């Protein structure tokens, strides 16, 4: 004889990831490490910004470099003789809390106080996956088009800090940088939005003081 049974599962993959993310944040807190999830599209300047921050910030910095093939970005960070872990996502378009937890095992957390986690270049998929970082910094560039914010609202809604990069070439690419700022503010009225150029140095001091402001909270 057979019988039919209804079985309640209620297994939410997002909730499972969030639990891992909470555990990651506790690991970081226990080691007094402040962590920044750096998100943004391919070519927005995430890696260059982190390289600049490594040189300019007076902190013991470590980096988790997440990418489909991570050795390229990881190699750029290793030049500065800081702890770096490359995370290959392979076919995946985002980091998740489980991958990041693995990376912690290869990082000397006791000897750093600021950890940048460079996410995979993508404005869509990483939004769903909290990593356990303390803040999310989204880096976009004017060359992506000044409608980028409107097209990808959720990542900006959930950002703690937004950097609009490459503003020195805004006119050349026909992008209205002020529209990009106001589009972010429309979605996330209280978020700090900084216009920057890594070429000219515009906005860098503000980015550093904003990150340090979060660290000191």
């Amino acid at each position, binding site marked *: *004889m*057979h019988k039919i049974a209804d079985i*309640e599962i*209620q*297994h*939410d993959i*997002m909730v499972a990831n969030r639990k891992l993310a909470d555990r990651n944040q506790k690991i970081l807190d226990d080691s007094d490490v402040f962590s920044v999830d750096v998100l943004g599209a391919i070519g927005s300047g995430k890696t260059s910004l982190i390289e600049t921050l490594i040189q300019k910030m007076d902190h013991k910095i470590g980096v988790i470099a997440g990418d489909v093939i991570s050795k390229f970005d990881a190699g750029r960070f290793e030049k500065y003789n800081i702890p770096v872990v490359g995370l290959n996502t392979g076919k995946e378009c*985002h980091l998740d809390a489980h991958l990041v937890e693995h990376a912690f095992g290869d990082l000397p957390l006791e000897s750093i106080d600021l950890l940048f986690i460079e996410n995979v270049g993508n404005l869509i998929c990483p939004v*769903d996956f909290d990593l356990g970082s303390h803040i999310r910094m989204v880096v976009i560039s004017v060359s992506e088009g000044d409608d980028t914010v409107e097209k990808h609202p*959720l990542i900006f809604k959930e950002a703690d800090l937004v950097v609009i990069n490459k503003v020195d070439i805004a006119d050349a690419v026909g992008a209205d940088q002020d529209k990009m700022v106001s589009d972010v503010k429309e979605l996330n009225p209280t978020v700090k939005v900084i216009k920057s150029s890594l070429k000219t140095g515009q906005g860098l001091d503000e980015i550093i003081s904003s990150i340090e402001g979060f660290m000191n909270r």
Partner: protein
Amino acid sequence: MHELSMADAMVKTVLDVAEKNDATEIIEVTIEVGKLTMLNPEQLKFLLDVLVENTLLEGADINIVELPVELNCNSCEYTGLADMDDSDHYLAIVKCPECGERNVEITAGRECNVKNIKIEKEEGDEDA
């Protein structure tokens, strides 16, 4: 495109539960997906159909239920459904449907939940 990894996780979850409950067949699966997740239900369904081949899930009805977006407004204290427009999910998260203010927090719509399954099993397997 993270539908593949999500679909894979869902299939593993379902097969695991079915096995623990000594299922001889899985008849139906219900999956809830929030409208604000970065998942396309049609792509998810396609991948699930591929992944279930040659498993106990092959032939099961897979129901994907989309869950609405809900929010709390910090200005007027509205709590409830957001305005949804399937062609523009910007609208749902930008302002309160009650007072129009922008200071809103998303409280639902991000789910990706394997809710339940209906299985067939041998009579008498009550210890699962």
